Each structure stands twice: as structure tokens, then as C-alpha cells.
């Protein structure tokens, strides 16, 4: 999605994203609970997420299946819990890969300038022309479905946003006196960048990475919804919506609505947490 990493103007005034606001605390807490649930999923899940029980197909909530079962009789709670792993691991891969390469490339471009800078901005221009989801679909159509191809494709699509942000941050940082002081003291470029510039730009970059985590989650869930993401049997929230859609049309919405709700809550939580963090960083810099 091309809105990734574009800092929405005027957010500093949003009361709801004030770092100390209850909403912000709630969202950070939700992200924590979610991570814990994903880590402990195999122990928390009451059933095998892939155990088919056709006698229980589309069952409602019961003591045995607290959140009901899907069209194949698989326990929805277990699938949601185990699905949290794939659903969070994918975006984590996208964000990690795009942030690491984006920071490295953006920093090199800003520090060196010259031909390196122009080659990098030209290639970023090309990637900008491909919306993330489209690039992912193009790559999937060649390599086939799976988790790796979409994650790599989205990481490539998100990377220029990070490199452009880093480039502008490093350009601003270079002008500050402490950098000249280190240069005069004879420190190498690599050392100054890694030890002194990187820690200074890290909060802004990480806050943006938190926000793009939500976008990556939406894009990856969308691909799974198209049947182009994770393989059919892997529990995954987007895939669960895809599997549950025919049940929705038959009037049994529970197995599709629950993953929908989790997707929305997770994206909102990451957005609010990331924006709150970005605001705090912006205020401190002022």
C-alpha cells in the first residue's frame, strides 16, 4: 500500500494517540498479549488446529468449542491462536527485511551522495511504480503460492519508503555539529554512521516500522484471502476469512467474522502504538 510510511500530517494533535492516553496504553497492551498468545499458541490451543471433525461442521459456541468450528469442523479458537503465528511472522519478516536494507541503503546514499545516490533514487522510483500487492501478485504468479514469495515481494515494495526516510534523516543529521566533531577526531565514516548517527535516527525509523507492520499485515492477509498466500492447511487469519466466506454466504458467519475482528484490532493496535511513538519522538526532537 502506497500510504506506508507517509507520515500523516497533523497527527501530533490527535488526543487519541497521545502516548499517555488510555487508548495508546490499551493498544500496546493488546500487542503484548497477542505476541504472548502467538508464542504460547501450541500450549494454549485446546485442539489440534487441523483436526477435521465433520460432525461438528459450523458448530456454534459450546464448552467443547468456545468459539465454534469452521465448515470442516476445525476448532476456531485453536486456529486463531496458532494462526496468530503465521499472521504476525509474515509482517515481521517484511518489516525487518525492508527496514534493515532500507536503512543500510538510505544511509549509504545520504553519506556518499553522487552516483550511488542517483542510482538508488532511480531504482526506488521504479519500485514506487509497483503497488506492493501488485508486485507480490506478479512474483507469486511466477514462483507459486507460499509464505516466502509474498514476504520478499512486499519487503521489496516497502524498502524504498524506508530508504527515502532514512536518507532524509541522515542528510539532516550530517549537518549537526557532533558529526563534524567525530570527523575531525578522525573517526571513520562507518563508525560514525553505525555508532552515532544510527542511534539518533533509530526511534523515527522504528516508529515508522511499527506503523508499516499494520500495513504489511493487511497486505499479507489480503494475499492469503485470495488464496495466494500461505498453503491451504496452514492456520492463518487471512486464509480463515477465505475459508469462512462460503460459510458466511450460508448464514454461518462466526468462523470468518472472528479472524476479521482480530485482523482489524491488530492493525489498529499497531497503528496507534506506532503513531503514538512517532509523536513522542517528534515532540522530543523539537
Amino acid at each position, binding site marked *: *500500500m*502506497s*500510504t506506508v510510511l*507517509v507520515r*500523516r*500530517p*497533523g*497527527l501530533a*494533535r*490527535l*488526543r*487519541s494517540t497521545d502516548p499517555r492516553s488510555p487508548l495508546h496504553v490499551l493498544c500496546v497492551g493488546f500487542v503484548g498479549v497477542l505476541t504472548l498468545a502467538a508464542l504460547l499458541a501450541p500450549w494454549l490451543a485446546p485442539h489440534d488446529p487441523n483436526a477435521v471433525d465433520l460432525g461438528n461442521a459450523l458448530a456454534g459456541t459450546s464448552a467443547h468449542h468456545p468459539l465454534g468450528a469452521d465448515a470442516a469442523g476445525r476448532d476456531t479458537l485453536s486456529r486463531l491462536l496458532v494462526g496468530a503465528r503465521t499472521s504476525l511472522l509474515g509482517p515481521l519478516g517484511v518489516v525487518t527485511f525492508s527496514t534493515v536494507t532500507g536503512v543500510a541503503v538510505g544511509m549509504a546514499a545520504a553519506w556518499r551522495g553522487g552516483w550511488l545516490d542517483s542510482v538508488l533514487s532511480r531504482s526506488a*522510483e*521504479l519500485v*514506487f*511504480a*509497483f*503497488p506492493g*500487492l*501488485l508486485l507480490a*501478485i*506478479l*512474483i*507469486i*504468479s*511466477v*514462483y507459486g503460492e507460499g509464505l516466502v514469495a509474498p514476504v520478499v515481494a512486499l519487503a521489496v515494495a516497502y524498502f524504498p519508503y524506508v530508504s527515502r526516510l532514512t536518507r532524509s534523516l541522515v542528510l539532516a543529521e550530517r549537518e549537526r555539529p557532533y558529526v563534524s566533531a567525530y570527523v575531525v577526531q578522525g573517526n571513520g565514516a562507518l563508525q560514525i554512521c553505525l555508532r552515532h548517527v544510527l542511534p539518533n535516527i533509530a526511534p523515527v525509523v522504528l516508529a515508522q516500522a511499527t506503523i508499516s507492520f*499494520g500495513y504489511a499485515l*493487511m497486505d499479507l*492477509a*489480503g494475499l492469503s*484471502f*485470495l*488464496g*495466494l498466500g500461505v498453503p491451504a492447511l496452514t492456520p492463518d487469519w*487471512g486464509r480463515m*476469512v477465505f475459508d*469462512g*466466506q462460503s460459510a*458466511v*454466504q*450460508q*448464514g454461518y*458467519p462466526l468462523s*470468518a*467474522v472472528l479472524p*476479521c475482528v482480530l*485482523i*482489524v*484490532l491488530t*492493525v*489498529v493496535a499497531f*497503528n*496507534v502504538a506506532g503513531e503514538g511513538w512517532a509523536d513522542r519522538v517528534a515532540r522530543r526532537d523539537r
Partner: protein
Amino acid sequence: MNVLRFVVRRLAEMALTLLAASFVVFGALYLAPGSPASFLLSGRSASPAAIAAINAQYHLDDPFAVRYLRWLGDVLRGDFGRSITYRTDVSALLTDRLPTTLLLVAMTLTVVMVIGLLLGRLAAVRGGVTDSAVLVGTTFAVGTPSFVAAVLLQGLFAVRLGWFPSSGDGDGIADMLWHLTLPAVALALYLVGMLARVTRSAMLDALAGEHVTVARSRGVPERQVIRRHVLRNALGTVLTTAGLIVSTLLVSTILVESAFSVGGVGQLLELATTTKDFPTVQAISLIIVALFMAVNLVVDLLLPLVDPRIALTSGRSSA
């Protein structure tokens, strides 16, 4: 301000990027494991005659550069090759399905522009509880992917209440509008949230300006202050966002058309990807990229008209 030079320069830049993009779209085929012929025929009966036909159609016996230039020449003449799944010309498939997608995009854009602007304006002008309600609502709207909205709307309004059809695209214009209402709303939700937030903050920025205080102290009616001095100043930001909205829409139609089985270009791309119909995937990808860039160009051209403080520069658009 030399408009003509700017346009020529931007068009040249766009042509270069498109050329590079076409190379990516074409070259992707050669990243596939195995020979291009076996990839193009994957999962289908590969009689020697079929392989010979594929080799001839894609000129696979020629060197890579020749193949690329031939393909590019065909594309420039509007010939995207033959669909492997449908066994017809891809361009025929596209002309068949494009009207549906364009109608869906037009409906969504209308909804987004009207409701997004109204909500943003309401939040900025009223403040207080209205503002908080709009903020909370839009926070959830921008966290809802279009396919989630599609499934939820389908469950509620099509299955439970039965107000709208749950799938298909209908015959005749009235029936089509009725069939496309839910898909358009599903597409619009996220974008309404985005536009309302941008409009709100752009208007708040404008409201804080000294010119507004001056206008008010001169006794200009508040309605007129909002319309002529606040909304007018926010228009540039809104236009930039509108460009983003159109390009996001082009991609989201893939998800929503699939969810509602609407026979448009987006659903075609999804079907073509699952059936490994590569010529169709290439054609649609290239068209979306071209539209994406065209929208950016149009926004860059309109921006100085809306906000004269922005001069035309050849700098990159803030997409």
C-alpha cells in the same frame, strides 16, 4: 512557470519508468524455474504441437532482447498476446471486463470524496465530541482491509438482511449499480477514513492561520471563512491524497471483486494468477502501473492550479 516544458519532461520521465516497469513485467517470466515454455504450459497437456505453438507465439527461439522488443512492440499496438486459460486475446478479455471495474471505481470515488470530505470538515469545524467520534471511527476504518469489510458487509447486508445481492455484477445499468453497491462501500471504508483524517488535519492547520483570525475580525461570516479561507487552503493536501486514493483503489479492486465475484479486471487478475495465465497477469500489471503513474502526473499538474503556492517542479511527486 513553463507548463509545457514541465509536462514534456514529466511525460519523458514517465515513459522511462514505464519502460523499466515493462522490462520487469516481461523479465519476471524468465525468473520462473524451468523453461518459459514449460512454465507457460504448467499443469496443462504439453503436446509437441502445443509447445511449438507457445514457442512461436512467444518467439522463444529468438534471443532475449529480440523477444522483449517484439513483445513491447505488440503491447504498444494494444496486443497483449493470447490468454492461456481463456484461449482468447487478452485485450478482448480486458475490454470485456474494464467497464465493470471502471463503474466500481467511479462509484467508490464518489462515495469517498463526498463522505470523506464531509466527515473531515465536520470534525475540524465542530471539534469536541464530534471530533473524537470521527477520530475513533476513522482509526478503525483505516485498520480495516477492504476484503475484511467485503466479507462483513456481505454477511450482514446480503445474507442476513438480504438487501443487496451477495455476488455477481448484474445486467443493465440499474442492476449493475445495485450489485456494485456493497463492493463500492467495502472499497470506500478504508479510503473514507484516510481522506477524513487528512482533510481534518489540513483544515485544522488552515484554521490556525493568521489569515483566518484576520478574516474573522473583519466580520466575514464563519460559513464563508470556512469555505473560502479554510477549505480552499486544505484543497492541495486533499488533492494529493485523492491521487493516493485512486492508486490504492486500483489495487484493492482485486480483493473486493474476488470477494463479491464481480467480473471485473481485478477478479481477472486473481483468476489469472491462480491458473498461471501469465500473459493476462503481465497485461493487467502493466496497465495498473501505467494508470498509477498517470494518476500521479495528473495530480502534479492540477496541484499548482489548486494551490498557486506550489510551483511546477520536475521533482518527484509525493506519492
